[in-house]
């Protein structure tokens, strides 16, 4: 027996506007959905609601002033952006960094990767209706904020490090906080996994939601946890190691079907692997000579202020660096780091001047999000919300 709806000739297609201000979209992007009842027929995304013209600003700023801009790309894991930018400039200048600086950078980057995945998984819980997991994880994120604050002074938009290293050595307090974090975090993460991983409702909500094959994902230029959940173990840290990542032992978690549940589990596993890397880095730091926190490049790294006031050479270097009188080669560089969302690339063209001639950010959120309309067609609206959440689209990185 057919219902009268199945009999009727014309199905009504409703247009639903999702965003740009919507509690479930994390950030400002709009989707105009055409829906047949609860099923989505098509989606038309509009982005650009927070376009801040980073690439244009970068052409008018000296290299060291671009770091605060990179902070605001993926602001949930700002240190990764900062380190990536510094490494790009160091590649352009051809600088070699001491191992200790590399290990310190690895600690900072892995902490911010943990912080980003905590937000993503916590918010995935909130979007599927489970608010408590988010509250537990945000406490841990506060601890990571405390570590960043001790190192560089800021919680969220850190502007951490300098071209050539760090601005100051990690204090004893910072090391204590890192050790305390390594000790206190695993039980909380296990609690969170107990709440979600084998939770019947969560599994029912998330499995089978927007699966994708590796071929399709590669076609969309996906990288990061999304591609790894689909089944390909592409990690920039493994394929093109930077900042001494080749000295570390860690695994790259890979999923099978690429659906929401796989992405959630891949991110959880990456948090554990990041914790492992941080422990190894703390061990390795003990073997390196103490007190080294920057490369010995006086032409590009600001001398300490006491020397500037007393030493003629330091004064001249300081003047040249701040006024931009240093000799930069005119070349082009592409450097990629493994951001929390995928391959974050910096394409820099210099012309020997004080500012870049052209700086382009290869933003993983932007490139990952273009698959979204194709992923949600045929699914329910609540599945579309979960898909958006599991893709971890950060509005700052989307629009740049």
């Amino acid at each position, binding site marked *: 027996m057919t219902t009268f709806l199945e009999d009727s000739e014309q199905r009504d297609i409703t247009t639903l506007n999702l965003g*740009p201000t919507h509690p479930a979209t994390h950030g*400002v992007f709009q989707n105009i959905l055409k829906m047949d009842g609860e099923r989505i027929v098509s989606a038309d995304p509009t982005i650009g*609601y*927070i376009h*801040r*013209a980073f690439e244009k600003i970068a052409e008018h700023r000296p290299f060291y002033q671009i770091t*605060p801009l990179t902070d605001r790309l993926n602001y949930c894991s700002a240190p990764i952006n900062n380190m990536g930018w510094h490494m790009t400039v160091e590649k352009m200048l051809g600088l070699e960094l001491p191992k200790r600086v590399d290990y310190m950078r690895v600690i900072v980057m892995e902490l911010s990767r943990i912080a980003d995945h905590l937000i993503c998984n916590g918010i995935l819980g909130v979007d599927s209706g489970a608010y408590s997991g988010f509250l537990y994880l*945000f406490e841990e994120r506060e601890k990571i*904020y405390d570590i960043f604050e001790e190192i560089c002074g800021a*919680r969220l938009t850190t502007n951490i490090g300098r071209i050539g290293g760090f601005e100051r050595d990690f204090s004893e307090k910072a090391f204590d906080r890192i050790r305390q974090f390594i000790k206190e975090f695993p039980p909380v993460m296990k609690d969170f996994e107990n709440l979600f991983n084998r939770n019947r409702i969560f599994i029912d909500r998330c499995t089978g939601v927007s699966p994708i094959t590796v071929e399709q994902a590669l076609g969309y230029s996906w990288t990061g946890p999304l591609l790894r959940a689909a089944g390909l173990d592409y990690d920039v840290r493994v394929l093109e190691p930077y900042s001494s990542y080749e000295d570390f032992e860690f695994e790259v978690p890979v999923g099978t079907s690429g659906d929401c549940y796989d992405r959630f589990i891949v991110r959880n596993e990456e948090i554990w692997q990041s914790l492992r890397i941080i422990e190894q880095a703390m061990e390795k730091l003990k073997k390196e000579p103490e007190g080294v926190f920057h490369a010995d490049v006086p032409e590009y790294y600001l001398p300490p202020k006491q020397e500037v006031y007393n030493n003629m050479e330091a004064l001249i270097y300081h003047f040249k660096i701040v006024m931009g009188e240093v000799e930069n080669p005119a070349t082009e560089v592409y450097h990629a780091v493994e951001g929390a969302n995928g391959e974050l690339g910096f394409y820099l063209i210099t012309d020997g001047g004080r500012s870049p001639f052209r700086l382009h950010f290869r933003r993983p959120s932007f490139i990952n999000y273009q698959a979204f309309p194709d992923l949600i067609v045929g699914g329910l609206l609540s599945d579309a919300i979960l898909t958006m959440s599991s893709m971890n689209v950060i509005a700052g990185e989307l629009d740049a």
Partner: protein
Amino acid sequence: MSDIQLVDAPAGVEGSGFFATRLDKAVGLARSHSLWPLPFATSCCGIEFMATMGANYDIARFGSERPSFSPRQADLLMVMGTIAKKMGPVLRQVYLQMAEPRWVMAVGACASSGGIFDTYSVLQGIDEVIPVDVYVPGCPPRPEAIIDGLMRVQELVRNESVRRRGSEEYKELMAKYGIQ
């Protein structure tokens, strides 16, 4: 002895079974301790707001237990993050949908004045499109600063006259922004 603190009663005349005070004071007292925010979070300041909402800094202590994402049911519009020119009309529409009395808090440098983004695509301060009551500087402001901003809004709310929204001065302010 419990350590729950109650707000002091406003000045008034008390007798057996009644308490008389000014309507402004009573209404202001009730409103200021139950402000329901609309978190209009666009970028980095939104993450600091999430930290403020979390267990460590807890904005629910101030009465903002229910963040309302629907403008019709919200008292306080907290604009957190950069507003681009493309977003300006959307912000204005959200503000127009709020019912009186409504207050606006601009959180962060970008909402107050455009922040570090002095570019062709960023609105240099939301007070170009909507009237603002409290500005919270910072990039991003610490959760303590956001709570401080909320407390200043509470002070404004506590001391506001019940007739303000119908007064000539308020109508002039709205006319300046082109709002009827």
